[in-house]
C-alpha cells in the first residue's frame, strides 16, 4: 500500500521541525523576532502564532502554485505571497488584540523578511505536494513557536518575576531587569543553544554506545 509510507513521511516532516531541525536552536534561523519580541511569554506566543499563520498560508499557496510560478522570478513571487499574508495578520491583530499589536509594533510587519519563511518556500514547498508542505509548515512553525515561548518564559520569569503577567515570587523578589532588556535576549539564547547542543551530544552518545 502506498498510503502507509506516505503517511509516515508526512509525520516525519511534521515532527522534524519540533526537535531535530528546530528552526531556532538547531538551524539558527528567524533570529530577529526570536530575540526582539520575546521579553514575555505572551509576546513570544503571539509572535509565534502570527508566524505560524503566515508560514502555513504561504506554504499552502506556494505548493499549490508550484507548477505555475516561473523559476526566474520565483523569489519575488514568494515574497509577494508572504507579504500578503503578513499584511492580513497585521490587520487582524490590530483589530482583535490591539494591546499585543502595539507592543509588537513593526516586528509583525518584519515577519516578511524572516528568513525561516522564505527558506521553507525555497527548500520545501516549491518541490513537494500540498499535504507534505502543510506538514512541514506546521512542524517548523510549531518548533518556532515553542522556541519563542521558551525564550519568552525564561526572560519573563528572570527579568520580571512573573509568568503570563501573574507574579510568581513574593514581594522580596528583586527582578533581574537585564533579562528583559536586549542583552538578556542574546544571553538567554546563547545559554539555550549550549543546553541544546549538550542534550544533542548526550543523546547521540547514548545511541552509539
Amino acid at each position, binding site marked *: 500500500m502506498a498510503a502507509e509510507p506516505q503517511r509516515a513521511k508526512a509525520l516525519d516532516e511534521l515532527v522534524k521541525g519540533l526537535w531535530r531541525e528546530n528552526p531556532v536552536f538547531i538551524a539558527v534561523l528567524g533570529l530577529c523576532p526570536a530575540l526582539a519580541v520575546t521579553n514575555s511569554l505572551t509576546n513570544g506566543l503571539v509572535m509565534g502564532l502570527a508566524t505560524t499563520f503566515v508560514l502555513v498560508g504561504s506554504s499552502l499557496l506556494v505548493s499549490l502554485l508550484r507548477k505555475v510560478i516561473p523559476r526566474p522570478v520565483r523569489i519575488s513571487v514568494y515574497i509577494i505571497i508572504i507579504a*500578503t499574508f503578513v*499584511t492580513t495578520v497585521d*490587520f487582524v491583530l490590530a483589530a482583535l488584540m490591539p494591546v499585543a499589536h502595539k507592543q509588537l509594533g513593526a516586528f509583525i510587519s*518584519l515577519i*516578511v523578511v524572516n528568513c525561516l519563511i522564505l527558506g521553507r518556500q525555497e527548500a520545501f514547498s516549491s518541490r513537494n505536494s500540498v499535504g507534505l508542505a502543510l506538514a512541514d509548515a506546521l512542524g517548523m512553525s510549531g518548533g518556532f513557536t515553542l522556541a519563542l515561548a521558551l525564550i519568552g518564559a525564561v526572560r519573563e520569569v528572570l527579568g520580571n518575576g512573573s509568568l503570563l503577567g501573574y507574579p510568581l515570587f513574593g514581594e522580596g523578589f528583586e527582578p533581574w531587569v537585564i533579562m528583559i532588556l*536586549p542583552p538578556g535576549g542574546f544571553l538567554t539564547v*546563547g545559554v539555550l543553544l*549550549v543546553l541544546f547542543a549538550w542534550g544533542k551530544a548526550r543523546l547521540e552518545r547514548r545511541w552509539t554506545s
Partner: protein
Amino acid sequence: MDELIFIFASASVINNFTLTYFLGLCPFFGVTGRLDTAFRLGLANIFVMLITALASWVLNSFVLPYAPYLRLITFIIVIASTVQFVEMVIKKASPALFRALGIFLPLITTNCAILGLALFSTNRGYDLLEGLVYALGAGLGLTLALVIMAGLREETELAGVPKLVRGVAMSFFIAGILSMAFMGFAGLFHGS
C-alpha cells in the same frame, strides 16, 4: 539642527539597530568571521539604506495615502528592485567593487534592518532630511556593530573555548556583552 544630531546619535549608538533592535542579525552572525568583509558589507548596507529612505519617503508621501494596505508590499518590492538596480550599476561602473562585494549585495534584500528602517522612519513621520540622517546613522551603527563583532571573533578564534560553546553560542555571548556595553550610550543625552 539639534533634532538631526539627536536622530543621528539615537540611530547609530543609543538604539543601535543590531544590538538593541536585533535587526540584521543574519549578516551579524553570518559574515562577521573576517574583518574586511564585515566592513564592506556594512558600507553596502549604508548605501542601500540611504536609497531606501529616499524611496520610502516618496512612497509614503505620494502613494500610500491612497492605499495604506499596500505599505508592506510596496516597500519590499522597492527594496528588492533597489538592490537589483544598485547591483547592476556597480557592476557597470566598478567591476572591482562588484567582485569584492560578491554574494552579500543580493542578500541585502532579506536583511531585516532595511525593511525595519523603512517601517520605523515612516512610523515616526520623519521628513526627507530626517529620514536620510536616520538612514545614515542606522547604517553607520550597523557597520560599527559588524566591525566590532568581526574583530572580537577573530580574537576569540584561538582562545580555549569549550567545544559545546564554540561557534554560534559563543557569538551570542559576545553579542550580549556588547549589547550591555551599548546600553551605556543611553545616558548620552540625559544632561541636555
